[in-house]
């Protein structure tokens, strides 16, 4: 058998790989066969029968083994019945007719059948305007129904599958896309079919309902308005929406998104974001985004406590000032200080960071990155390089994940790694406690908190099984996180991982290297530009005269305590954080939705986001604010993000060759997704604004030797509180999404049953926890998967926990009322 076959579809000849389905082959020649249940990412189910076509195959002469000829052409035999294009494989010489009378009749009749059970409430349906059923009915359906209106199928119309996703039972056409997505793609079968025939329903029995961080994607691929998100339901009509390409700012994966906006009376005539949709990038997020990106994606930019005007503190009160005055004061303060400090975070774009770097250079200022995870110097050297795509990893490759609960910290990486494992890549999960990724792993290695570095170092001994696996593997990628590790610990861990990769030859080529599971969208970019964290921020705050804090909240996070003598604080921010509350000069920045820029993802891909809505108040983009301050110090910096990037590319070798033009390039992606034929891929947006570009491999010859110890260990008889990153927390960027409040819940801490026994706490007890001078009340969850001696404390949930520490616990006595 040859591996490519040639066939004719509606008179167009096409050559495709053997094993392809007719429906996909047709896509290649822009023949759009109507479908409902098939989806290029979900495969065939043949549940809806919408894709009926006529299929003919050459008659083979048994004597010669060649096709019989008639007038010099192969004689074609058409099958007696129509065939489903979503299950029929292409074959040599096949002739497919999608528009013949017979085919059209079949398609039309299936539609007519579907419509007998359909409410046709398009005028009040959220899907109306981007609905495959509506579109296909217009294109292929009958104008009139012959069925009796009185016998129409009726069912419940507002069924919450959870608090995020609603089901309209009448509208469901039972295509099974949602169920198959959860089962096959997300790997979390928490929705299912119930009953059969006309009574068939989608149900969820999980706690909470529809308990999956990928749930929103089902609303994109549902071909009718049966599944809708609580966020967008009755929010707008699709045809009123404008679309702006964006990048999710919630984690280091950098999912490509489209922000749908409209001008509306409800928002005082302003243009506002109505929803976040995935935008296809087969190298990053394919057609999906996680629920955090979808439901929390932008809400924080619309908070009431957005900073709208520059402010200065005078007599301990904030007073609004003009930008001019603010720039001038900032410039003077920075210039007068002996060694000003710039403290920036990975929430800023590459352009913001580059301008900050230039300004700092001119001032001789110290540039600090605000993070408690280290190792970015190494990911800059041995990180993924141009040409990498997690989708390329499979049989013969190895992926190792260490010290990270990936589904909570970077859901789309979790998904892509799970898929790589399903393709045959060896997955090794190395964690101090059970995480969801383990179900898909070939090896699970468990270590005690504190043994992180040693565990990886041991693996790198030539005789160790895992070293051998790495040595044999074609490609290897390590994802490391910072669970239980502070800055030093995670730097050390990155070092140990680097040694393993370098010793086994897995760096400086595509699909090999080290990836940091950062907490912010552009941490990687900040490292690449040369920003570095310090171990003790407190010392910096204690001794500096002027600190310029951009996009960070060290006070609110408990990373520093302000004393009587504190530095002059210039704070450039979006929201009224605790740090802003102590600022001396406040500079209101624009949100990523209100400006342009690029982020560098954890996979070192530079991706561009565009302005979607007008700015709030007088806020300005960070790069521009910095350029204005610089201008008052006689330093000329670019104010156009594209030009800043040109400068950046010139100065920072890893960015060589990168420009806005380059990152905006697109090539054809498979599957071919198109909003005009959205019955094929769903309501996700096609990518016309750029697939981004990966950074070059850095020319390195030597690596810093991994030093440093692991994280803290629990001491005999004492508990160690370890911060963990949760997808949904009370951090401002998530908490601002009203929809997610229930999922966020209250502060819950976890410990092992034995530990709870020893301390005399029972499951569900209310505890008061004191930690580093802060305290909070929490609900105790007794969980056997937590190692003994450990108390897991989620970050940003009310108890500031910047690094691990020793907690003081006591039970909250119930108030006696009466």
């Amino acid at each position, binding site marked *: 058998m040859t591996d490519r076959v040639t066939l004719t579809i509606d008179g167009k000849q096409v050559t495709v790989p053997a094993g392809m389905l007719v429906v996909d082959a047709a896509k290649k020649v822009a023949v759009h066969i109507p479908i409902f249940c098939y989806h290029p990412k979900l495969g065939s189910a043949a549940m809806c029968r919408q894709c009926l076509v006529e299929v003919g195959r050459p008659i083979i002469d048994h004597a010669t083994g060649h096709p019989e000829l008639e007038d010099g052409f192969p004689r074609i035999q058409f099958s007696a019945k129509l065939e489903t294009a979503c299950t029929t494989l292409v074959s040599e010489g096949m002739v497919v007719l999608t528009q013949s009378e017979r085919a059209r009749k079949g398609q039309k009749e299936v539609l007519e059948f579907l419509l007998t059970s359909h409410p046709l409430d398009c005028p009040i349906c959220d899907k109306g305007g981007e609905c495959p059923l509506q579109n296909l009915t217009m294109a292929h359906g009958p104008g009139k129904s012959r069925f009796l209106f009185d016998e129409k199928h009726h069912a419940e119309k507002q069924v919450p599958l959870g608090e995020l996703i609603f089901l309209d039972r009448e509208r469901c056409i039972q295509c099974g896309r949602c169920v198959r997505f959860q089962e096959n793609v997300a790997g979390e*079968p928490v929705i299912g*079919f*119930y009953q*059969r025939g006309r009574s068939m329903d989608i149900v969820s*029995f999980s*706690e909470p309902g529809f308990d999956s961080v990928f749930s929103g994607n089902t609303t994109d691929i549902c071909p009718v308005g049966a599944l809708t998100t609580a966020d967008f339901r009755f929010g707008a009509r699709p045809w009123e929406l404008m679309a702006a390409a964006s990048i999710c700012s919630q984690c280091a994966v950098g999912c490509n998104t489209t922000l749908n906006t409209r001008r509306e009376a409800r928002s005082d005539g302003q243009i506002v974001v109505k929803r976040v949709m995935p935008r296809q990038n087969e190298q990053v997020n394919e057609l999906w985004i996680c629920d955090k990106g979808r439901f929390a994606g932008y809400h924080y930019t619309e908070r009431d406590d957005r900073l709208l005007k520059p402010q200065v503190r005078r007599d301990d009160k904030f007073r609004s000032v003009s930008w001019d005055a603010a720039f001038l004061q900032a410039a003077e303060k920075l210039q007068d200080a002996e060694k000003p400090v710039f403290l920036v975070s990975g929430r800023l774009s590459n352009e913001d960071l580059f301008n900050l770097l230039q300004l700092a250079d001119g001032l001789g200022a110290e540039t600090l990155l605000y993070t408690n995870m280290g190792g970015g110097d190494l990911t800059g050297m041995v990180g993924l390089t141009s040409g990498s795509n997690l989708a390329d990893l499979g049989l013969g490759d190895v992926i190792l994940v260490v010290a990270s609960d990936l589904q909570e910290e970077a859901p789309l990486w979790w998904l892509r790694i799970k898929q790589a494992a399903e393709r045959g890549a060896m997955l090794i999960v190395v964690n101090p406690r059970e995480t969801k990724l383990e179900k898909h792993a070939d090896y699970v290695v468990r270590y005690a908190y504190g043994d992180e570095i040693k565990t990886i170092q041991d693996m790198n001994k030539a005789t160790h099984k895992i070293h051998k696996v790495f040595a044999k593997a074609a490609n290897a990628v390590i994802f490391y996180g910072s669970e239980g590790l502070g800055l030093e610990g995670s730097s050390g861990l990155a070092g140990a991982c680097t040694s393993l990769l370098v010793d086994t030859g897995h760096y400086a080529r595509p699909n090999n290297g080290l990836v940091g599971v950062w907490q912010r969208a552009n941490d990687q970019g900040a490292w690449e530009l040369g920003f570095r964290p310090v171990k003790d921020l407190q010392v910096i705050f204690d001794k500096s005269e002027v600190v310029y804090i951009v996009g960070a909240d060290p006070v609110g996070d408990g990373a520093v305590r302000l004393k009587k003598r504190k530095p002059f604080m210039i704070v450039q921010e979006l929201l009224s954080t605790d740090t802003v509350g102590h600022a001396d000069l406040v500079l209101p920045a624009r949100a990523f939705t209100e400006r342009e820029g690029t982020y560098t993802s954890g996979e070192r891909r530079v991706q561009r986001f565009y302005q979607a809505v007008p700015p709030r108040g007088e806020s300005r983009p960070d790069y521009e604010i910095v350029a204005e301050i610089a201008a008052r110090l006689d330093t000329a910096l670019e104010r156009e993000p594209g030009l800043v990037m040109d400068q950046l590319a010139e100065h920072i070798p890893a960015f060589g060759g990168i420009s806005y033009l380059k990152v905006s390039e697109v090539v054809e992606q498979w599957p071919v997704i198109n909003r005009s034929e959205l019955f094929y891929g769903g309501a996700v947006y096609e990518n016309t604004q750029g697939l981004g570009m990966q950074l070059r491999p850095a020319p390195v010859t030597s690596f810093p030797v991994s030093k440093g110890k692991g994280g803290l260990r629990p001491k005999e008889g004492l508990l160690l509180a370890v911060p963990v990153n949760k997808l949904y927390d009370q951090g401002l960027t998530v908490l601002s999404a009203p929809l997610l409040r229930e999922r966020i819940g209250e502060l819950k801490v976890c410990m092992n049953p034995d530990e709870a026994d020893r301390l005399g706490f029972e499951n569900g007890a209310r505890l008061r926890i004191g930690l580093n001078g802060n305290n909070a009340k929490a609900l105790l969850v007794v969980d056997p998967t937590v190692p003994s001696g450990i108390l897991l404390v989620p970050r940003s949930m009310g108890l500031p926990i910047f690094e691990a520490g020793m907690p003081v616990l006591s039970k909250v006595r119930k108030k006696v009322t009466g």
Partner: protein
Amino acid sequence: MTLIEKYPQEVKQILARYPQDQKRSAVMPLLYLAQRENGFVHRRDMKDIGAMLDITETDVASLVGFYSLYHDEPAGRLRIQVCTDLSCALRGADDFLAALCESLGVEPGGTTPDGLVTVEPVMCLAACDKAPLFQVQTGAGLEYHERMTIEKTLEWIESRKEAAS
């Protein structure tokens, strides 16, 4: 009480029938076990079974939903399911159902006040030539009662009543 606490022996026996990596196959017999006592599968038991077999509660529930012999709601202790599909209707199944309901004093789908009998019409039971007929689940399994009359049916109900008391 969880299923395994209530029926430790049975659960162990059922689980032992399947290899460790195929243990989800035990879902069907475990559901029968869960249904045995009360005539329906309690939500709590679905959860238990899911946890035992490493599948989601939704997965378990969708099986209960799919198979008409699993019930998710309480009914009479004897759930008499009368086939009223076409072939049976031609042999008088409709009349049989109506008469049975009348003599028990219930509507189709209803339960007698003493909670003993529920009568339900159902689709083809694959014994079309032996109508009127009904199926019923008892502790012993699934029973077919074919070529029935009202008298024979009431007699059988009576005998079950005695057996129960």
